[in-house]
């Protein structure tokens, strides 16, 4: 869950409404955080947690004088779990035992007359790899909000930002969705304000309710705003719930320089190495604009997916 707004940028600037845009899926247009960004920060934080920073963090290319670079040792928790590269032109790198999927938006907070509501859609639920959601079809009625049939749904309609939509409570899968989402460790105040819309509406709701901030660059020489330095940037708002998977491979199935992997000996240990860095995510965060109070994330729960076989799949 995002504790701050999160800005993982596209690296480019674009003319128009927003200067610094965030990464989106090119077809669904829903923002996401690429797995490569997550793998990068988790590696750096694990290196900090294990006293291997900065040597085993980063790209791993040694400096010109030969200092630095990944240690590449079979007993290094950072190099075995996240992989390592050797200097340019030498062989013998290792791909790493943990794989990080893209982070997808699962629940998105929107202002309404009833206070914040957390919105999801069948496509976002399907992407969780939770077996019960795998066959969810898009909603038949596209222009309504589906909510639980309890006291909160007494309102016949609900505004989600600028959209005003009729409320319905007759969508059967909703109770199971509530239950499964609760098992992910998502707080009750979010579950109690959960609503489901169609895939198409979800894209609109997310994109028209992103946080857009305006900022100026400060000229270090004068301490004042730089000439022409006004810019805007967008971010996922605070309390967005994101979903990602860490696939942990069995260290016994791999060798490093013809020898056994020594730092970890099971998929669970691989997971534990990754999990040791979660507290850093909560304090140092991910993505850009960290100095502007953005990017902190709290991992709510780590859950092994039911039916996940050999590779230890995780949900956070």
């Amino acid at each position, binding site marked *: 869950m995002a504790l701050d707004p999160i800005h993982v940028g596209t690296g480019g600037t674009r003319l128009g409404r927003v200067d610094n845009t965030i990464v989106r899926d090119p*077809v669904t247009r829903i923002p996401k955080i690429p797995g490569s960004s997550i793998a990068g920060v988790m590696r750096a934080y694990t290196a900090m947690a294990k006293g291997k920073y900065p040597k085993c963090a980063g*790209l791993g290319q040694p400096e010109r004088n030969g200092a630095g670079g990944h240690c590449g040792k079979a007993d290094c928790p950072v190099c075995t779990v996240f992989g390592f590269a050797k200097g340019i032109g030498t062989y013998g790198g290792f791909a790493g035992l943990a794989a990080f999927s893209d982070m997808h938006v699962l629940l998105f907070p929107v202002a309404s007359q009833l206070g914040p509501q957390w919105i999801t859609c069948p496509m976002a639920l399907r992407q969780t790899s939770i077996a019960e959601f795998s066959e969810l079809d898009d909603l038949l009625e596209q222009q309504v909000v589906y909510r639980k049939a309890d006291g909160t749904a007494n309102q016949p309609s609900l505004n989600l930002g600028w959209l005003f939509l009729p409320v319905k409570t007759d969508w059967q899968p909703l109770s199971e969705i509530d239950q499964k989402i609760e098992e992910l460790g998502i707080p009750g105040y979010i579950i109690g304000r959960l609503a489901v819309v169609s*895939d198409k509406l979800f894209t609109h709701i997310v994109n028209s309710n992103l946080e857009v901030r305006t900022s100026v660059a400060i000229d270090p020489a004068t301490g004042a705003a730089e000439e022409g330095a006004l810019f805007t940037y967008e971010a996922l708002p605070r309390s967005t719930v994101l979903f990602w998977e860490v696939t942990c491979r*069995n260290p016994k199935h791999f060798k490093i320089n013809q020898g*056994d992997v020594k730092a970890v000996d099971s998929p669970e240990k691989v997971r534990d190495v990754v999990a040791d860095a979660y507290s850093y995510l909560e304090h140092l965060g991910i993505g850009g604009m960290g100095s502007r109070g953005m990017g902190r994330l709290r991992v709510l729960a780590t859950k092994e997916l039911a039916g996940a076989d050999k590779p230890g799949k995780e949900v956070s």
Partner: protein
Amino acid sequence: MTWTALRWVWRLEAPLFVGMPPAGALNRCRPYVPARVLWGAVTAEISRSGNGEGFPGYGKLGGELALNCRFTYLFPAEKRGDKFLAWMPKFEKMRGHQWYCNGGKESLSDRDFRRRLLDSRPGTAIASESDSASEGTLRETECINPWWRDSNCKGETNAILLLGYVFLRNNRFRRQLDDIDTLFIGGDTRYGLGKICRVGWHEVSGGSFVFGQRVCLDGEHPEIESDIVWGHVLEGDQTQIDGIQGVKEFLGGWDWGKPWRGKIAWVPGSFLNHPVAWSIDQNGYWVDKEKKL
């Protein structure tokens, strides 16, 4: 019948990167999955799942798998109603590569096809000293996107599927293949790329057609009778193939941590003016039986 033919269909659960020679800082992606990539992924999966806590015998199992299984390339496909329709390449004079779907009823130029299929993601390494982009690491990686980018503005999101065939000698490895429902293929899998899930797995019965072409399943290798090749055809392995037209590329790869010296090959979609009986060899390459040296 020596060989059993099965058709399998996979859905992309994450972007997929199958590398080809880069263009500057752009890591280009192939719009199909070569058989050798699949063989590698299936070898890894079967040897790990069958080996509990021990170190898997990748080399031995890989060899047995290559002998007893043959893979066609996987091509992008979409589901319409209850039908899976694959997009297949064909080289045409003056036009270059074209992609055809639905038995030739629909076509797209290579450029338009790639635009519908591919996306690219920029990336840099972060320098730990400065917490900013590390000098000289900016690159862009092209990937097959999990969703078709539709030009018809219907606003429907349609998943990208991958369709291909497997041939099993005397149905060997059938049980192990039945058990596979998820694979990680291609590059950068530790960044979550290349996760595919199987959505179709059917025996090809009766008349035995593969990509709409007749196959013969009785020989030493499965044979496909076709005037278009839908795999790579290595040049050095056979005498000149008369009248073949298309694009050639230098094909290389890795073998057990060592670079594998490549060869010049005709790319998928190259065509002849008459059908040839192509056999699929252990590396997934298409070989003209008559011309084999």
